[in-house]
């Protein structure tokens, strides 16, 4: 590094210090390992690659984010990759709710999610029930009637086992007296494709995953698993309106490897705050029906604790854990 760039870097750092205390002592010195806790083409993957693009396009980080998909074992592979990372200050991960469920289901991993660095929650993703247009089903009531009639011949496809999609499927089965069969896939992209190809009868894809086929008219949204109707789908009722107290969201958070230094954690929190505030991210949030504010640090930790407790209750009720 020559003198001029040293000086300009120093000046930039100084400028930052004035804008945002505390002073940022950390700067990445090599490419940042950006682990994605899911397979290619799903909601988490698209979002992670969008974040990477925003960082690259606006030159926000000194070093590139290098995305790698680690979808194995419902996210266990990714959790371990972070836990065992050799360079903890250069290893971050995009997580979803398997961040809560997988450590609960696999205590052998010895993963404590509160040891991961709380960099930032970028959004809460939403879930919508989809069927293929050829089913001739247009309302949630028709869906319940048809699925009830077909019993275990009604097939719901979703991402992973005992994860978000199966939790919602179990809820629907329990609350409406259905007996749908659940088939796990490695990612939301594959689920969306198989619903479009009528290989499965329904899905609870995130809007971002199903949007392409929704816009082409292949799939129809029936009900949203949110507290209020989604601005993008004003005519789609919530499951609450159908008389059950249920809402389910997926966290879209960025976490750091356990043992990451506080300086590095502060650096990434600042980086992702800027990503969150960027026009591109805000547009994406609106277009893909994402909700939720930016959370970091203590607030994010508290959110994790609440979510872990909720998932423990859900998994105990479904018999997935004791």
């Amino acid at each position, binding site marked *: 590094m020559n003198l001029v760039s040293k000086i300009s870097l120093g000046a930039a750092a100084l400028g930052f210090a004035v804008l945002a205390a505390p002073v940022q002592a950390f700067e990445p010195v090599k490419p940042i390992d950006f682990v994605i806790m899911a397979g290619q083409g799903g909601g988490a993957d698209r979002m992670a690659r969008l974040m990477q*693009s925003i960082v690259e396009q606006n030159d926000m980080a000194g070093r590139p984010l290098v995305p790698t998909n680690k979808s194995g074992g419902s996210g266990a592979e990714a959790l371990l990759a972070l836990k065992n990372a050799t360079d903890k200050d250069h290893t971050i991960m995009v997580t979803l709710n398997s961040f809560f469920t997988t450590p609960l289901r696999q205590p052998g991993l010895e993963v404590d999610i509160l040891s991961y660095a709380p960099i930032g929650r970028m959004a809460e993703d939403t879930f919508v029930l989809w069927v293929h247009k050829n089913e001739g089903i247009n309302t949630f009531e028709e869906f319940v009637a048809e699925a009830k009639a077909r019993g275990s011949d009604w097939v719901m496809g979703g991402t992973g*086992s005992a994860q978000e999609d199966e939790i919602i499927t179990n809820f629907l089965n329990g609350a409406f007296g259905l007996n749908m069969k659940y088939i796990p896939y490695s990612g939301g992209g594959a689920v969306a494709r198989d619903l479009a190809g009528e290989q499965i009868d329904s899905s609870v894809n995130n809007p971002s995953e199903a949007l392409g086929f929704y816009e082409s008219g292949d799939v129809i949204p029936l009900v949203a698993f949110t507290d209020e109707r989604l601005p993008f789908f004003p005519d789609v009722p919530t499951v609450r309106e159908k008389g059950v107290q249920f809402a389910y969201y997926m966290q879209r958070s960025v976490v750091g490897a356990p043992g990451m230094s506080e300086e590095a954690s502060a650096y990434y929190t600042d980086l992702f705050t800027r990503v969150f505030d960027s026009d591109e991210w805000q547009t994406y949030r609106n277009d893909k029906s994402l909700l939720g504010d930016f959370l970091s640090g203590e607030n994010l930790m508290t959110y994790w604790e609440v979510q872990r407790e909720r998932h423990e209750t859900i998994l105990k009720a479904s018999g997935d854990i004791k």
Partner: protein
Amino acid sequence: MDVLLHLADGILAALAPINLGLAFLGVVIGLFVGAMPGLGSVNGVAILLPFTFVIQQITGTATSPMIFLAAIYYGAMYGGAISSITLGIPGASTAVATTFDGRPLALKGEAGRALVIAAVASFIGGTVANVVFTGAAPLLASVALKFGNPEIFALMLLAFATFVGLGGDDIPKTLISIFFGLIVSAIGFDIISGTPRLLLFDSTVWFSRGIQFLVLAIGVYGIGEMLWTINSYRYDMKMTEADITMKEVGLSILRFREAWKGTAIGSLLGFFVGILPAAGATPGSLMAYGVAKMVSKDKSKFGKGQPDGVAAPESANNSASTGAMLPMMTLGIPGSPTTAVLLAGMVIWGLQPGPRLFTDQPDFVWPLIGSFYVSNVIAVAVNLAFIPLFLWVLRMPFTILAPLIFVLSVVGIYAAYQNIYDVWLMLFFGIGAFLLRILDYPLAPAVLAIVLGPIAEPTLRQSLILSDGSLSIFFTRPIAGPITVVAIILILLPLFGLIRRKIKASGRGGLTV
């Protein structure tokens, strides 16, 4: 006719100076990335994605950056063959099958011929795929959607069957090789239940990520091949003279007819496998090799330098890479790691990939398709022109080449996974492969199994959940049924042959087989 008009417009747009320049640059970068062991098209497009934002700012359209990335993808498919043939190390996973016959040809002093076959076959494969893509993209997308889990599993079964039913090779050894590959592919986390399997020592370190395919491929074909060559040429370290003039390159092109069968199989099969979900260019090239060997009259010549054995995988990997673009562009779903990166690019350039892309964004789609044709011509021209240069590698004495192969293999694996465990594993596989080769075990089936295992296993289990555990699901569905039946017949063929020979032998009073 509408399509032809669109295509003509598209090719014209692709020939605009800036797009032509980007296509050329992309192809050259792709050739280099593809030829480097460990680096493949996915690394090339991922590393250069940020650069495309600059291109977009300059040109103001999303088409030019996409043309650039697609050209890298293409170039890499050509480049992979270069190191497969000259060094015996697969330049990329898509070029593993090219080493099977490309390397023996090079050892016979015919590397130039092998490189020409690879280049021309790649060109034909790419062009066939482009024509099919242009004519029938939306139609094929709907066909791809008809392939659910049972259909894909049936197809995987067929792929294994082509390798078992090949004849020529020792069947028990082929089966052992396949099962070894399947076991290796099962290591790591189970997708369906999320439980760790077959982990060695401490589950958190060794094998928890599973065995990466390139670790096995570079171990077997880089290190294993190097050891084998050292062993075979122990007393004669002088390699065959490998030299070729441009005139001889021309003559080899004229002789290309000898590999037409492999090229035809690879071009069509590769495209089909490419458009299917979860498959891609690597399975496509391996399956094309298997089928080319199966239908050949000279099965025994395969693996010893058969031109068809080079042409089939090379035409297939180019064809499949165009095929893999199809679900990405028509459905918005990536079929391979490289297309996942391309898809991410499209989102940030402001496009909405999905079923409406063709109707909503014709200004993006058609110049891109036009550029497939243009890039393909550039790639074959650049590749053929550089063949004499590539051969320079082979003229190096083996005492220099062997350490070079070793270093490239180690660096390639470390660069790809940034993990020293994978380097040790690769060396382990290399030594293992060398020993198995001395014992005359075929290694290609193991490589096929480790590529197809991770596709076959989940689709099998998802199908069985669907059918409540009944295997009939593979026979009763209209597409899966016939494929399964053909696969089973192929697996049983050698058994019939064996029985016939036994009867003949006992008829003559002998009991030996």
